[in-house]
């Protein structure tokens, strides 16, 4: 039973990280219908920026709360800046191109960013310091759920609530929903579509950076390649829940996280990634619109 609970919580933790990344995929897909392959790389860049900032601040002897706040700020700001720039450089010129073009451009961007970090930094795994010491009151539960798991779950929940509020109740959120429904109509009622798309990329990238920061301090090491697998898995989660749907992405992420956790715990850990990919293939074959997605009917 204890093993089960442990696997359950580790699945939830995984799921929350996937959710943070999957939201970026699903929001971008909802608005411009593009699979943003470079999204996983934004997550990786967020993690790297966090590592660099926190190490520098630690060396200069900043107090712990300042280190945490500044690290979170720096990694979200830079990741958002990267997301914004990637959109402007690689996707915006291709708004009206055939469907395949932005996709190939996105793959190119992903390879470019990976190798950019590889060349600018290093190809080795870098140790990532645990930013937050283990809480005292968590000690009795240490066998089941660690402090960092707890933090990941709480942070994800807070971020989700904020995002839901943003999309449901603010002017920007309304503009985003309108653009997702019909870009031309949104333009006609005076929404600056380019700006809305930029904002979507910025929000998605910032969320991915938070995910990167959390998982890096949870696992304790990063390298330039972490974005690729995480990106595909988060995408799987987004598709599982129904791409374009925000609650769907969260649901899909938790299902994927739990599946992976139980499959590796009870079956075999060698095939961890195979489970995720097989799940992806199966969903796309049997229910391409996902669990909560609407089946899109193509009109001629």
């Amino acid at each position, binding site marked *: 039973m204890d093993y089960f609970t442990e696997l359950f919580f580790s699945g939830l933790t995984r799921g929350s990280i996937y959710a943070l990344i999957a939201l970026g995929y699903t929001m971008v897909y909802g608005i411009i219908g593009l699979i943003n392959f470079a999204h996983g790389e934004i997550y990786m860049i967020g993690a790297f920026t966090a590592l660099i900032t926190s190490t*520098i601040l630690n*060396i200069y002897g900043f107090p712990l709360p300042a280190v945490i706040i500044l690290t979170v700020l720096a990694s979200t700001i830079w990741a958002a800046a*990267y997301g914004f720039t990637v959109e402007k450089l690689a996707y915006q010129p291709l708004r009206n191109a055939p469907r395949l073009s932005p996709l190939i451009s996105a793959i*190119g961007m992903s390879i*470019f960013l990976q*190798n950019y970090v590889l060349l600018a930094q290093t190809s080795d795994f870098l140790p990532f310091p645990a930013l937050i010491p283990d809480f005292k009151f968590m000690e009795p539960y240490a066998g089941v759920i660690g402090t960092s798991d707890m933090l990941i779950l709480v942070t994800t929940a807070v971020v989700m609530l904020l995002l839901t509020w943003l999309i449901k109740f603010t002017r920007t959120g309304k503009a985003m929903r309108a653009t997702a429904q019909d870009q031309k109509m949104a333009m006609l009622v005076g929404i600056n579509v380019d700006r809305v798309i930029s904002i979507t990329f910025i929000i998605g990238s910032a969320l991915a950076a938070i995910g990167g920061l959390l998982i890096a301090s949870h696992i304790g090491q990063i390298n330039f390649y972490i974005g690729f697998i995480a990106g595909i898995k988060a995408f799987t989660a987004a598709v599982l829940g129904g791409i374009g749907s925000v609650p769907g992405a969260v649901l899909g992420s938790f299902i994927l996280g739990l599946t992976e956790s139980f499959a590796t715990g009870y079956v075999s850990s060698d*095939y961890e990634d195979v489970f995720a990919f097989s799940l992806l293939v199966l969903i796309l*074959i049997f229910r391409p619109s996902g669990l909560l997605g609407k089946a899109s009917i*193509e009109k001629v």
Partner: protein
Amino acid sequence: MISLTDIKKGLLVSLWFVFLTFPLMVIKINPIDKVILWRWSNMYWVAGGSFLCYLAMQIYKTRKLTRQEHIKQGLIKEKPKMQFKLLSDPKIYLPTLAVAGLFFLAFPLLFSTYQTNIMITALMYVVLGLGLNIVVGVAGLLDLGYVAFYAVGAYSYALLHLHFGLGFWEVLPIGGLLAASFGILLGFPVLRLRGDYLAIVTLGFGEIIRLILENWNEFSHGPSGISNIPRPGFFGIHLGLEQSITYLYYLMILMVIFTIFVVNRLQSSRIGRAWFALREDEIACQAMGIDKTKTKLTAFALGAFWAGMVGVIFAAKTTFVNPASFTFLESAIILCIVVLGGMGSIIGVIIAALILILLPEYLRAFSDYRMLVFGAVLVIMMVFRPQGIVANIRRTYTVQKND
């Protein structure tokens, strides 16, 4: 040509890039020793580089705009493209073809074994590019797991030789057919999917194949791979290393010619025209009575067939296979060849494969930047020249008036 506002904007752009690349380019940390390395020179490079890139882009844009304006006003006539002239004038392309043919035939005699070996690799990528070109360029199905079929070919030679002692020539068609059947196996479930989902599923499929090869030790010997695969035999005569490389080279040349011939014939065939129609508009294509299922499956199977055959040759060339040779990056390189060459264009794909494989070999100093450049090439080509370096010439029909 460059106005003051352009320069101002350029400065802003370069400032933005300096900010953007600051943490990753300038700072390098060593988290264990707690040492920070400030690399300020990188900052100046980024600033200067992005400024110049911006100006170059601005100039390119204005020139393109004024040209279009002039054509519209009738001031200058639209020049027929240089490349079309080259490709359609027999006085030019026949001698070029002859020289190129002679060069490739004499290559092993003129250059060392080392060079020949590199050339074999380049020719393998030519065939891979042409194979993927069927799927991506002609039929418009973005396949990101192409390397899986390549792996199927290579492992079928390795395993069939290991367990049944089959030779190169027996396995060559078997490897191709096995890969083709894997292509159909993958093709069936993904038929209903739209372009972008298809890309992801093929990517997942490619990774699944690699992970299985890596983890199923009893079947594929795991990450350590299979070694001692024999090179192709020459009518039972034993060849030395140097001779067998030369032999493999000519074999590859034959393979390239065969591929070009088949692909060229395919494109003008009934099924080829069905692929083009499928690429342009799936619904219209169905409305014209084309069987979508059959058309897509043949594209997948034929594309995979070439990858399987090249896989067998790869195993024979390196005499060793392991899963590390079949990562996603390999698929990305092949995709890059197709995109750079021009989707659907045979000559373009050949030139692009030679450029992309040979240049990094000879510019060793830049070989670290290989993948960086490949990524950038994909983006830049899509933004500025989606038709590739040698655009595919569209088949046009003219109606002659009888008067």
